[in-house]
């Protein structure tokens, strides 16, 4: 029964969603709404599950003093500090006049969100720029036709997407043929064509995989063998 029940649920939900797209009326519309709400509830639990799992893994790392355990310690402390300020400010706000929320401007939670979390996460993302530059210098080579095409497209898009592209070409080329126009053309024509091909491929793959899952032919999502 551990396998049959999930397969039955998957079959019913999958069929209802597929039918509801074409027949959005009773009973399929009502079922779709119900299943959609259930999905939202499961999603909310998944957030908790993810947070608690992160804590569990981090605590295990710290207690067993695994390599890089100080990073796990930072995760735990950061998590607890944010949770503390969230609850503390939320509790304080409930009994204040006028009431305020833990995320309102001026609260400790908001301060940490703005000046610690936002700054640190943006920094992590910004590191990409350094690695891209390094990789472009050391590895981005026109070794064959495909790589050359990619390189030429990158050249036009990178310069055309910033003002310097037009600054370089404005005095040579007529309006409508400057670097930004080339970048626009690359994005609108070859990029769109490629994206469409990829999207159609993904859609076909999704349909076939979904059918296999709905019909119970694909069972790896259940775990085990």
């Amino acid at each position: 029964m551990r396998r049959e029940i999930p397969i039955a649920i998957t079959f019913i939900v999958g069929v209802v969603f597929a039918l509801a797209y074409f027949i959005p009326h009773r009973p399929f519309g009502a079922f779709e709404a119900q299943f959609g709400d259930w999905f939202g509830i499961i999603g909310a639990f998944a957030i908790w599950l993810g947070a608690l799992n992160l804590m569990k893994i981090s605590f295990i790392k710290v207690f067993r003093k695994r390599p890089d355990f100080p990073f796990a310690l930072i995760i735990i402390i950061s998590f607890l500090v944010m949770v503390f300020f969230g609850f503390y400010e939320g509790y304080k706000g409930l009994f204040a006049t006028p009431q305020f929320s833990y995320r309102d401007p001026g609260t400790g939670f908001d301060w940490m969100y703005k000046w610690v979390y936002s700054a640190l996460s943006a920094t992590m993302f910004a590191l990409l720029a350094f690695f891209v530059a390094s990789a472009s210098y050391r590895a981005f080579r026109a070794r064959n036709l495909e790589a050359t095409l990619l390189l030429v497209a990158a050249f036009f898009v990178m310069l055309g997407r910033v003002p310097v592209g037009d600054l370089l070409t404005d005095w040579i080329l007529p309006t409508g043929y400057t670097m930004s126009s080339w970048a626009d053309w690359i994005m609108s024509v070859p990029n769109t064509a490629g994206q469409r091909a990829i999207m159609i491929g993904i859609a076909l793959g999704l349909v076939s995989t979904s059918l296999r899952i709905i019909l119970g032919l694909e069972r790896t999502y259940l775990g085990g063998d």
Partner: protein
Amino acid sequence: MKAGEMIATAIIIVVLLVCKFLLPKPIQLSPGLSGLVTVLLGLCFVYIFYLTMKDRPVERRIVFLFVGIALVVPFFMQFELPLPISPEVEKAYDQMAKLQPGAKVLVSFDYDPPSAPELQPVAVAFMKYAFAHDLRVIIMGLWPQGPQQAEQAIQSAFDAEPKLRDQVKYGVDYVNLGFQSGNEFVILRMGEGFKTQFPTDINYTPYDSIPLLKNVRNFSNIDWALNLSAGKPGTVEWVQIAVDRYNLHLSAANTAVQAPMAYPYLQAGQLLGLMGGMSGAAQFEKKTGYFGKATTYLLSQTFAHVAVVLFIIIGNVAFFRSRKESK
């Protein structure tokens, strides 16, 4: 930590302290000095080119240093650069500009702080425009951090235009419905009724007691929607469900990484305009007339793009030269 790294760290700290306490604010290089710095950076690239041609490619740390300089120094420069408005930004702006006062706009904040440098300027410019033109803004988020980003955008708009703080009323001119888990299912259920997914706003005020939402039942009561998206769930899900099934008029602002994926929807007319990356954000700021961080950051991005392109050229010239020699 090695001695070299300690010295580099110490130099950076000293420079930051000098900038913080000794230099006058705001720090701005004159156009002449800005030009001189640019020429010096160009000469450094010539030297790197020379070294690379001599089979002495510069090490990774030098590349990092150059990117760092290319990103940071332009913050203090004064350059007037041309910024043509792309057709997709023009289209998005036109959708917004044709809204009548009192029109209801749904804005979904589907991003988190890592993507904020590219998307937050659009949010701030939009808020300033919306409040100045009496648009009614309904905020929501499919990402947990989205509503908090919205609050920050509103505060930035209020800080820039203090009179808005008194003029704009929460619940009447704008409302923040908060985050709802469930990804595309939230959009699907909103098609039947916003209240099913947001029974209260972010402050737990019941949906029915919010004046702005009085006649808002589902997407058919929304005049225009703007999706600020950094991934999934985001623009693709909004197009596939809200636009395809419920005929929502939707425009989007995407990160530069995500924008190429939205182009097929743009050409098909399912997406009414797109602001892609920092450049799209700066163009949007220019169109609205509310210049902000994207315009400032764009100069940094320009320098960084040029630096990367020069590194690619230098690397490839050296590659072809070495290949020719080996033959």
